[in-house]
């Protein structure tokens, strides 16, 4: 490649000037022709220098400049209004007069008032048909079937074909219980527990040992679950827990708390009861519990 001559610094400056000019042009849209011709003259001078150096880079920029300039010129020329320039808006107004069948002052009506009737459109359409070499569409005399909505393509991958001769489809039993939320299960359990308690004790003054009631000698986890459910009964006031003469907790039946009877502050008490596996085993031994008073609730084997 031929090494372009000229001072590299000067060349850089030329490129910079070209870019400036192109930027100027893009901002010149809609301005008068005078500023455009000035810009063009500046570019011409620059190009004389470019010619001396024979450098391709600057020449390319000159071409880019020229392209932008000619686009701009073209846009300006389009906007130029010559004497008998066609005015789409004037044409529209004439059309309105023609289609509405009356003469109205163009300025006296607003857009919304222009409501050309379908018949007028239709008539006009017929009039202009002679301009078109339109092939009359082919229709069946008694009409054709409606095409209907497009048929959705079903992907093959969705359902594998069932082999023939297969027996009736076996469907696993639906498990209703899984649909229940945890909350429903809990409140059901709490009610069941209360029912069992009501069977055990005959009156409100008839206590039952807390441990006898809640501990399930076969299952630590059920024991804990029972204590959990018991806490709801206590909270709602269905049972009360007291310590008997031996200092062991016993359960009494109670009437649920009625806010009508108590005015003012009702003190709230909390009790944290802990029981670990070792303690549970000890309790089972000491109290000689052999059968759970609360039979474990029936759950589907899958569930737990």
């Amino acid at each position, binding site marked *: 490649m031929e090494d372009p001559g000229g001072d590299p610094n000067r060349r850089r400056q030329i490129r910079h000037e070209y870019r400036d000019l192109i930027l100027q042009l893009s901002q010149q849209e809609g301005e008068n022709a005078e500023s455009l011709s000035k810009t063009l003259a500046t570019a011409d001078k620059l190009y004389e220098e470019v010619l001396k150096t024979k450098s391709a880079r600057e020449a390319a920029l000159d071409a880019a400049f020229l392209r932008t300039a000619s*686009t701009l010129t073209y846009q300006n020329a389009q906007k130029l209004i010559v004497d*008998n320039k*066609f005015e*789409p*808006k*004037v*044409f*529209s*107004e*004439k*059309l*309105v007069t*023609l*289609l509405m069948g009356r003469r109205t002052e163009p300025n006296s009506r607003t*857009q*919304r*008032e*222009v*409501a*050309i009737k*379908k018949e007028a*459109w*239709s*008539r*006009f*359409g*017929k009039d*202009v*048909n*002679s*301009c*078109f*070499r*339109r*092939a*009359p*569409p*082919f*229709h069946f005399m008694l009409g054709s079937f409606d095409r209907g909505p497009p048929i959705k393509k079903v992907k093959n991958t969705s359902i594998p074909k069932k082999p023939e001769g297969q027996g009736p489809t076996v469907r696993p039993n639906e498990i209703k219980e899984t649909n229940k939320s945890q909350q429903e299960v809990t409140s059901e359990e709490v009610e069941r527990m209360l029912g069992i308690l009501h069977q055990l004790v005959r009156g409100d003054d008839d206590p039952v040992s807390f441990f006898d009631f809640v501990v399930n000698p076969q299952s630590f986890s059920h024991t804990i679950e029972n204590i959990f459910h018991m806490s709801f009964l206590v909270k709602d006031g269905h049972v009360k827990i007291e310590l008997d003469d031996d200092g062991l907790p016993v359960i009494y039946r109670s009437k649920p708390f009625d806010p009508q009877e108590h005015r003012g502050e009702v003190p709230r008490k909390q009790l944290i009861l802990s029981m670990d596996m070792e303690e549970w085993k000890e309790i089972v031994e000491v109290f000689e519990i052999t059968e759970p008073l609360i039979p474990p609730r029936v759950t589907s084997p899958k569930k737990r």
Partner: protein
Amino acid sequence: MPRTANNRRNVSEDEDDEDYTEASQSSQARQAAANDAQIMERKVGELVQYFLIMEQNKIPIKRGDISRNVLKDYKSIFQEVLMKAKESLSNIFGFEMVEVEHSSAKTKTKMYFLLNKLDSELREDLVEISSENPKNALLWIVLAIIFMNESVISETQLWQALQKLGLPQDEKNHPVFGDLKRLITVEFPRQLYLECTRVPSTDPASFEFRWGERATAEVDKEKLLHMVTEIYGNNMTPQSWRTQYREVQLWRQEKGLADEPMEQDG
């Protein structure tokens, strides 16, 4: 021409029977040729019918449409079937099958549509029941505006003009035209009546409209100019629209019409 789907099968079976009696090679060749002719005739008929039906909504037919919907297993005879269908359409129906190369952003597709070969004078007395007239009226107006505006109009200008006709751009439920913007920017371009292109280096993008391939083939520019002049008034004559008049002269030359001056209508 009634055609049944199992036509081909019946034919081949019949001839198979004959073949058992004289199973010579030459007769097999003859029969193969007869089969080919049968297939050809059937496909030509199907294609003619396809063209007639597809003209209903004026959407041009693509090459692929023909192969996929008509020829199916016989794509190899495309060219011949097309030529014969063209002949039939011309001789029987008086339609001209036009082939255009439609170029979109990157691809060029060959498309086909039908035109009427009869002169409008001859058609005048024919009864035409068409519900498309209102749309044609609008189409004519848009095409006329573009033509008179020296073959191109910006989207903004066009909508300004249509607004004056009570056709605003954002009208979705026009009692006659429905969704106007869709009609102008989607339906007409699809039918190749209009061409909507983006003006280069504009941001936000602005668009301009030109005539589409179908309009160029279908519209009688001379009649169009006469009608517009009549409506426009303002003491204009077709000749005083200089650019447009020159355009009409060029169009006449292309059509092979004599360079007859249009003064008599003046």
